[in-house]
């Protein structure tokens, strides 16, 4: 009886296993993305349009927070599952390529088609094309409240001068009621423009970290001075605090990305977007990281379904759809036709955004960047927390980055 029961369990398991395998409905396309709410609304509308043009085809979109999207896609695709298309910033391409969970796209699209995009939209890694972007940027700029700032600072000296005027104690209680500038102190991504302004970068051409440079020390010292010496930025700020300060008029300017502009306009703030200032000591502009955001194709998409998946992708990449998003959210399109449209060329915010992009540096797509962010975070926070000097922090960042990269690649 015991053997028989065991056999019965095996038989039942045998029938259940196929039910757990990748569910292949040839007429259903699934997209995972990390688009924010206003982007999602547009995506949903565009997908509805696609489905009404193609009866019988179902395209589903599922939002996941960036980290959850990354880890969820890795787990799912390694197990032979996952969505057909995954959408996110280009820095996820590095680990995805190493793990071989996304398809190379060069062979799937003709050269003529790819030439319809600006070159920055196509993310190549280790010789293959792995992502096609519909938006370019994801970049930081100087966002200012036009009611408080008539002309944004073009250099660090102008920033300090303007900062003294804008930082005020309105009610005379000895506490600052409005700061000149705010940004997120917890994420090193927001520190990159200062690093580049002093001539530094996160890694060399071989992908080895370069965090213990003189530029790093100078940049850390500069932001420390902004807070402790000039006192024109708040004592403590993460993303939410900086965002709220700007929205409440308690900060006249904020360093924030293109994703935030529409939200500020919606909040009723008359914003201006300006390129980040020039550092007079080095003669270099503060260059943020610039990265495309786009789609990659899951390695598990079967050949039979591939054409449908690519058709959805092509549909979403059409210039009119990119322009729809650009008009609503001030995002930079990637199709040459859309970029050269009169709207993009004449819109004040998009014009300045384009200047900032041209002064930006492409975000590396190598997997090691994860380890470098992780290594920068403690040192960056420790300097602002006062527990390390800029030099100590730079040395600690470099040592930690080397350790983490070694651990990651073991």
């Amino acid at each position, binding site marked *: 009886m015991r053997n028989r029961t065991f056999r019965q369990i095996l038989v039942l398991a045998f029938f259940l296993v196929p039910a757990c395998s990748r569910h292949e409905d040839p007429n259903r396309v699934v997209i995972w993305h990390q688009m924010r709410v206003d982007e999602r609304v547009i995506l949903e509308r565009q997908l509805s349009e696609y489905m009404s043009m193609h009866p019988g085809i179902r395209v589903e979109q599922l939002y996941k927070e960036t980290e959850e999207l990354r880890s969820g896609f890795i787990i799912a695709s390694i197990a032979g599952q996952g969505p057909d298309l995954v959408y996110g910033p280009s820095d996820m391409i590095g680990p995805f390529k190493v793990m*071989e969970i996304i398809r190379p796209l060069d062979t799937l699209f003709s050269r003529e088609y790819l030439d319809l995009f600006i070159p920055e939209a196509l993310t190549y890694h280790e010789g293959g094309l792995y992502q096609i972007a519909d938006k370019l940027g994801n970049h930081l700029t100087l966002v200012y409240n036009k009611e408080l700032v008539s002309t944004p600072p073009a250099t660090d000296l102008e920033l300090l001068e303007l900062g003294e005027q804008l930082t005020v104690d309105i009610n005379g209680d000895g506490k600052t009621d409005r700061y000149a500038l705010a940004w997120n102190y917890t994420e090193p991504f927001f520190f990159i423009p200062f690093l580049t302004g002093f001539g530094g970068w996160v890694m060399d051409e071989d992908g080895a970290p370069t965090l213990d440079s003189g530029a790093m020390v100078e940049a850390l010292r500069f932001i420390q001075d902004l807070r402790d010496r000039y006192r024109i930025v708040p004592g403590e700020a993460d993303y939410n605090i900086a965002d709220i300060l700007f929205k409440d008029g308690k900060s006249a300017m904020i360093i924030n990305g293109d994703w935030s502009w529409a939200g500020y306009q919606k909040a009723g703030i008359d914003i201006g977007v300006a390129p980040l200032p020039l550092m007079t000591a080095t003669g270099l502009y503060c260059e943020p990281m610039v990265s495309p955001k786009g789609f990659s194709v899951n390695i598990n998409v079967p050949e039979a379904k591939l054409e449908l998946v690519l058709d959805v992708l092509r549909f979403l990449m059409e210039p009119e759809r990119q322009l729809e998003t650009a008009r609503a959210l001030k995002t930079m399109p990637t199709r040459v036709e859309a970029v050269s449209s009169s709207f993009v060329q004449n819109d004040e915010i998009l014009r300045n955004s384009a200047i900032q992009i041209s002064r930006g540096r492409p975000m590396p797509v190598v997997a090691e960047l994860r380890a470098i962010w992780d290594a920068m975070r403690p040192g960056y926070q420790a300097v602002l927390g006062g527990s390390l000097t800029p030099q100590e922090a730079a040395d600690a960042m470099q040592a930690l980055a080397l350790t983490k990269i070694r651990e990651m690649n073991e």
Partner: protein
Amino acid sequence: MNATTSARTYHRLFIFFLIGPAFLILFAVVLYPFLYNIVVSFSNMSLRHIRDWSIVGPLQYVKVFTEESQPDFYVIFFKTIVWTVVNVLFHVVIGVFLALILNQKEIRGRWLFRTLLILPWAVPQYIVALTWRGMFNFEYGSINLLITQYLGLSAVEWLKSPTEAFIACIITNVWLGFPFMMIIALGALQSIPHELYEAAEIDGASWWHKLRHITLPMIRPVMIPAITLGTVWTFNNLNIVWLVSNAGEPSDNTHILVSFVYKAAFNLYRFGYAAALSMVIFVILLVFSLLFMRRTRATEAAA
């Protein structure tokens, strides 16, 4: 095959089909992942070896205990113990205290207080954690406003200093966790026969004596499993530490073991190492639970 054997076989088959689905689900969501985790913990699975991983023996376990990491394993382990003990202690003390008050029949509108006190438990942890993080802001957070304006003390750098940030995480989790213990204790209190208190009163027992010799022993069989469960949950509570301290800030100084595992697995893709560390956590909790249950004789008392 006679009729009796056939009936018995049919009966067994019937039982099998009743427990079969539950067994399969348990196998799929508990047993298989657990066994797979054990296998991965002996492997070199990582970013560079995600598909071609191989068994490398106890190497990852050796790394867990000997590798110089930042932060150090033993420091995080110590912090995890502090985190668990302090949290569970406050959960139980506050929970039982409030349950004793709410169990008093003289209190009017007990349902209202009960509802209000359960609220922390009802709000999603994500919302709670981010709200508390905002409240701990140095300049604009309500905690510091309270401290400076009403208590006349100087503001605390809650999220900038390692110790204060860790305390901020504990405060948030204490606020979140006491309603569970309160509900459990309240249920246990309501099941104590009132005659026991009447008899004690006749014997002239004081409030303290009644608490010590009737209430606490009577709620003990219910509270011990709840404390065990609370300990395991708190030990493994990733959300609060991760969200309040924003992934271990400042400078990775507020990690507990489970947030460290998460970081190793999903930030640095060290799956083998993370699996080994998970097994270490599992063994710690298993040993604790067995010892605690045996020492307190909780299962005997419940039986």
